[in-house]
Each structure stands twice: as C-alpha cells, then as structure tokens.
C-alpha cells in the first residue's frame, strides 16, 4: 500500500525516492495520481516481430528485410535473385510500397509467389503487417522470404519485422556519404549491398570512402558489390543468402531432432 495516499494501485508520487526533477509536476492529491509505466514504445511492434521470428524458426524460413532509398534497384536485384535461386530453393517475396502493386507483379512474373502490402500514408512496414501478410502468402517450409521494405532510409530502421537480417542496398548513384547521413539504417543492417557498380566508370563515387563510412557506423557490417542489371558480382550475394539459409536450416534440424528425441523418450517410457 502506498504510504502517501493509501491506495493499492502501483504508482508513484513526485518529490521523493527517484533521480529526476518533478518540481514542475502538479500533483493534486486525491483527484490525480502518478503511475509508473516503464513500457518500451516499440513493445507492441516487437511483440508481433517475436511471433514472426518464432514462425520463421519453426518453419525453417530465412527472412531478409531489404531496405534502401527509392530507386536503389531493390526490385531489379530481387527479380534477378529470384531467377537465380528458384531452381535451388523455394523463394517468396513480400513487397511494401505506399501505393501500387507494380513490384509484386514484377516478382510474380519471375514465377515466385509475392504479396503486396500498400502502406497508404505509412513510411515503413511494421511487424503486424508482416504477420498478416504471412497468413495470406504462406511461404513454403525451408524457403527464403525476401521482404522489400518501403523505399526510405530513415523509418524502416526502427521497426523489427522478425527478420534474420536487414540488408541495406545502396546504389553508387546515391553518393558515398549515405551511411553517415542515415546512420541508424546502416547500423541496423548486417549487410550493405553496393548496387549499380556498372555505372562506376561514369561517376565520382568513392567506394573505399563509402565502405569506411559504413564501417564507422557499424564496424561489423559485411559489404558486397554488384550490378543487378548486368549480373556482375551476383554470385557472392547468392552465396551470402545460401550461407544464412544453411544456418536457419541447421537450427530447424536441431530443434526437430530435439522434438523427435522427446517423442522417442515418451514412447520408450510408456512401453
């Protein structure tokens, strides 16, 4: 029970037992009270993200969240990637855009299942949107799911979708200083893909400076260079995906083996 006002609800009174200044708070005893909340603002999103992550683990799905500014070549890279991977592994795509289903149509033309989310005025995908999309798209077990986020180097950095990794795609026409200008995004990403390298001879883009900027905001970021248009440099990217997928599958195999062992143990003890 609170010794100040005598009520039983957990709460808090200003003016004692804590560090920061509350002298400016009105505290009209009896009609108003302080309540300690201590809740993360992103808790709602993160709850959905945790559920998505559990679904991905359970079903052996490698989910990659592709983030970039508009026009970096995400969809072209995805089409090319799907074409290259579809004979080797099941692939599915969730497309996020404010309007239109152009991108999902481009993906479907490659033969992969794709689901389009239109965020309307929204500037990013959130974990709840992905949860709803998964119910409709139902990606195959042991597949790779690419989530193409809304083209925006700011907002998508804040929202965990339950993915295994964020992949930041930066085209060399955008300027090498982008990792410093949008540090949250490059800090959240596990991999930076430098796209449109076929244009390098025509530009002043400083690759080394760009990589140094990315490493400055994220010392552990991996960097790959490719041209989605010509296909040059595509193999290391495909291998990066395959390696991540092997990890996902290994985790799933371990968890299935543990389940199997538990069922066998139950069977033996019931015999």
């Amino acid at each position, binding site marked *: 029970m609170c010794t100040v006002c005598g009520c039983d609800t957990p709460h808090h009174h200003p003016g004692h037992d804590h560090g920061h200044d509350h002298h400016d708070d009105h505290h009209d005893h009896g009609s108003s009270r302080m309540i300690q909340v201590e809740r993360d603002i992103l808790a709602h999103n993160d709850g959905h993200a945790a559920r998505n992550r559990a679904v991905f683990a359970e079903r052996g799905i490698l989910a990659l969240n592709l983030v970039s500014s508009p026009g970096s070549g995400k969809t072209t890279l995805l089409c090319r990637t799907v074409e290259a991977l579809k004979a080797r592994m099941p692939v599915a795509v969730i497309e996020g855009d404010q309007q239109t289903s152009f991108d999902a149509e481009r993906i479907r033309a490659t033969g992969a299942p794709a689901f389009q989310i239109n965020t309307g005025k929204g*500037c990013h995908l959130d974990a709840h949107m992905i949860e709803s999309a998964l119910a409709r798209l139902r990606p195959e077990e042991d597949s790779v799911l690419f989530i193409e986020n809304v083209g925006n180097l700011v907002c998508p950095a804040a929202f965990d979708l339950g993915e295994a990794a964020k992949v930041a795609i930066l085209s060399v026409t955008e300027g090498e200083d982008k990792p410093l200008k949008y540090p949250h995004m490059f800090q959240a990403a596990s991999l930076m893909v430098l796209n449109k390298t076929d244009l390098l001879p025509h530009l002043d883009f400083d690759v080394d400076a760009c990589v140094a900027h990315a490493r400055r905001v994220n010392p552990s970021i991996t960097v790959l260079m490719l041209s989605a248009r010509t296909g040059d440099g595509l193999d290391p990217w495909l291998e990066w995906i395959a390696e991540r997928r092997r990890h996902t599958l290994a985790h799933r195999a371990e968890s299935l083996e543990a389940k199997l062992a538990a069922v066998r143990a139950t069977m033996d003890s019931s015999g």
Partner: protein
Amino acid sequence: MHEMSLTESVVRILEGEAARHGFSRVKLVRLEIGELSHVDPESILFCFGAVAGRSPLTSGAEMKIVRAPGQAHCLDCGDTVPLADRLAPCPRCGGARLVITGGEEMRVKEMEVE
C-alpha cells in the same frame, strides 16, 4: 514520418494502462528518449499534440521528454564511454569502433492520471 507511428504506440500504451488501472484522463505523460535513438523528440511532441485531441483519455494531456545519455563500448580501448553523437570518436582513445550500449531507449516512463 515514423514519429507518428511511435506516438500512436504511446497512445496505445496509455489506453492499455487506462484499462488496467481504471483512470479516465491522462494529465501528463513522461517519455524517456535516448540521445542516440532514431527519433526526434520535437517531432514526438508535435505528433502527440496532433494525436492527443482524438481521444478523451489524452485530450489536453501534457507530454514531457527526458533524455537518456548516450553510452558506448569502445572496441579499441575496451572502455565504456559517454557518447553524445553516434558518429563521434571514442572520447578516451579517439577510436572509431564503438558499440552503442546506452541512449537508444524509447520508453513511456510514467504518467499522471485522474
């Protein structure tokens, strides 16, 4: 602008607390926003002003924001150091390889209700 989504999340948290604790009006809500978090406190205040009036629960409510200081672990000197800017070098050794360990908080701390 993701500050609008985040502000709507704050209101959702307040609604949840209202159902739990049985109050009908929020007079003051205090947030903790880390110095290195990816939101602009001014934008959150602006968005809250726009969103608060939509519901009797938050109509007229005041929002205050407390800044949590930035902190990082330096991979070069191994120290934990204060950091006011995500791109600043280590204040001890000048190293650039810093892993942020504090200042990214975005929390609803407490509120005054009636």
